[in-house]
């Protein structure tokens, strides 16, 4: 604030003017320049205060994410491992198996790689990379490269004897296609498509389509969760806004306590309640409503995820709704009533439209949070309650297909950013409040 407003404020207007009739300051500088300088200095001070955090966020947050997104198109493996082969492949027609020259180049590439220290060897990463495209590639390449120093010309036969994969134009098509610094193949895989023999992008086989339906399920579950939080949040926000301040603050604790309680605590609470031997099932059996043998399965599936996430995200709906509803004067609805509207019409035509900014804010907020949710689906989702972030985590931690994880992550991030932009258009970030 005024911390250094004074730094640039030492502009005292003198009585002098210069030869062109411009006003001067008391120490003889042109007034306009002096003011501009002061203004620049103030801008710099303001910017200087923001710089440390900006630099911190850019280095430790924004850059890592951009770098991760880069992984979704970055494609160094083939170029680095097989420079000679790619060179020789330039004349290949793509119809039949490549000529002996290409196989000799491949032999040379593999031999050259063996000379390198283990840490710089490129054939290993190549095998992993090509394995994403054709699942026999890792075995084929590592077996071939183990025996390559015993190969004799003609190399074509030697390679074809070493592994049947070298006898197939498919692997050569892939090497040619992926021998470029950038690739689209992770995105192709992420939308359940694949390349056919003519290098055209076609839909993958029925049984290998995973991600589009997973995205669809993530969106569908998020819509259901958003709707549930709206259905539960609207009445209580309305009720709270109609109460006097002191009472509303007291009841607000019911909304704020879950908001402040650890996410894992809330998730484990639902496991405790919903599991087969849990409180709800035990009560239902105890009351004789269901038999001991047909206890409801409410957890480790989609139902469990939706229930737990609705509970977890409900405060994010109630808080913006409440802050909007508090500003709506009750006299409007009363005026509608006195003009002859039924209670329902007064609500529908007069009150409800005024709550729309709150509904938009809460709805987009809940939706944005739920499409990227990881922890709760991972713990209580089972198979059919999994969401897209669980698949991203799986590719990073266990299948190690980082390019595909990056492609899925980029798609998720872009959807969230679009929604956030929408949110900003609709309500503006100023309405974000906590507690």
């Amino acid at each position, binding site marked *: *604030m*005024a*911390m*250094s*407003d*004074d730094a640039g404020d030492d502009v005292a207007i003198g009585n002098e003017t210069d030869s062109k009739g411009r006003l001067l300051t008391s120490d003889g500088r042109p007034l306009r320049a002096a003011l501009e300088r002061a203004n620049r200095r*103030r*801008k710099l001070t*303001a*910017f200087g*205060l923001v710089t*440390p*955090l*900006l630099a*911190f*966020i850019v280095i*430790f*947050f924004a*850059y*890592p*994410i951009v*770098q*991760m997104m880069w*992984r979704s198109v970055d494609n160094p493996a083939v170029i680095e491992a097989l420079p000679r082969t790619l060179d020789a492949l330039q004349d290949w027609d793509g119809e039949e198996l490549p000529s002996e020259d290409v196989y000799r180049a491949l032999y040379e590439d593999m031999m050259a790689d063996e000379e390198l220290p283990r840490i710089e060897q490129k054939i290993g990463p190549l095998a992993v990379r090509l394995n994403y495209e054709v699942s026999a590639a890792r075995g084929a390449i590592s077996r071939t490269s183990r025996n390559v120093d015993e190969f004799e010309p003609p190399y074509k036969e030697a390679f074809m004897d070493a592994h049947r994969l070298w006898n197939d134009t498919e692997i050569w098509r892939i090497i040619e296609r992926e021998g470029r610094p950038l690739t689209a193949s992770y995105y192709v895989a992420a939308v359940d498509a694949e390349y056919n023999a003519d290098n055209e992008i076609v839909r993958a086989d029925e049984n290998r389509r995973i991600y589009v339906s997973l995205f669809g399920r993530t969106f569908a579950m998020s819509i259901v969760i958003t709707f549930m939080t709206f259905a*539960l949040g609207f*009445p209580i926000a309305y009720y709270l806004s109609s109460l006097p301040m002191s009472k509303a*603050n007291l009841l607000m*604790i*019911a909304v704020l*306590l879950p908001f*402040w*309680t*650890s996410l*894992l*605590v*809330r998730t*484990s*609470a639902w*496991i*405790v*309640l919903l*599991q087969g*031997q*849990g409180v709800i099932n035990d009560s239902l059996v105890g009351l004789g409503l269901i038999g001991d043998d047909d206890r409801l399965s409410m957890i480790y599936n989609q139902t469990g995820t939706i229930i737990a996430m609705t*509970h977890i995200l409900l405060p994010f709906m109630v808080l913006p709704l409440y802050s909007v509803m508090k500003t709506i004067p009750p006299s409007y609805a009363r005026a509608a009533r006195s003009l002859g509207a039924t*209670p329902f019409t007064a609500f529908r035509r007069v009150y409800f439209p005024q709550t729309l900014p709150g509904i938009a804010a809460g709805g987009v907020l809940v939706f*944005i949070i739920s499409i*990227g949710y*990881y922890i709760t689906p991972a*713990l209580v989702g089972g198979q059919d309650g999994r969401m897209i972030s669980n698949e*991203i*985590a799986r590719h*990073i931690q266990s299948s190690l297909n*980082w390019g595909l*994880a990056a492609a899925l*992550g980029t798609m*998720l*991030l872009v959807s969230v950013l679009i929604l956030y932009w929408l949110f900003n258009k609709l309500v503006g*970030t100023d309405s974000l409040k906590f*507690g």
Partner: protein
Amino acid sequence: MSLPAYYTTKDKVWHYAFRVICFSIFFFLLAPILIMIPLSFNAGPYFTFTREMLTLNPEGYSLRWYQDFLGDEGWMRSISNSFIIGIAATVLSTSLGTLAALGLSRAEMPAKGLIMGILISPMIVPLIISAAGMFFFFSQINIAQTFVGVVLAHAALGTPFVVITVTATLVGFDQSLTRAAANLGASPTTNFFKITMPLILPGVISGALFAFITSFDEIVVVLFVAGVEQRTIPREMWSGIREDISPTILAVATILVLISIALLTVVELLRRRGERMRGLSPQ
């Protein structure tokens, strides 16, 4: 509360029905959290009320899960880890965030919208994406699986809350106070610590509390960036839930609920104080 005299029977029924609906939703919000408290005193290894507990037989209750928790080295270490990481991340994000908020609330700040967008992005980007990015980057610069890495990550996630709360406090800030101080000869530093700081302190503290709870409750980044040495309470709970779920989790959960009640009270008091100071509260 007596109902208005002109209410018809239908109005009355609706009035009470609506209250019943609202209170069942409040029940839905609170019950799952509160039900864990009695269950954590279970004498048996169950997640449900045993017959002894329902008949209030003292034999049905015990402190064994609390003993289990207190006697476990892993849990104890996770507590100190959580506090070390949480406090370090809070100090870092609060100091950086407060400075930035001071800059952002100046009228002459250039490119305000863009910078604000970047600064609050850690709050918007899904955690799984942040965690994945940090996982790759921190491994490259060799701070993955170190305390430094987890603290930096949590500080980044906590700063948006500090920026937003402190900026909000500065909206009602009277500029003439600092000008008066400067006029009376206060240096910028004196001015900041004697005039600005005491006035924005409630905002800074609630921002800091948000930053702390963000770190204290954070699990996704910990799963990706932390090693065995940096296991925090949520990380231990995660393994507890996934591997062998025992009522020890309930004991931990009860303690965490009590901590959140304490934090909630502090934030609420600060908020009311702030509103009173700015004359926004009706009281």
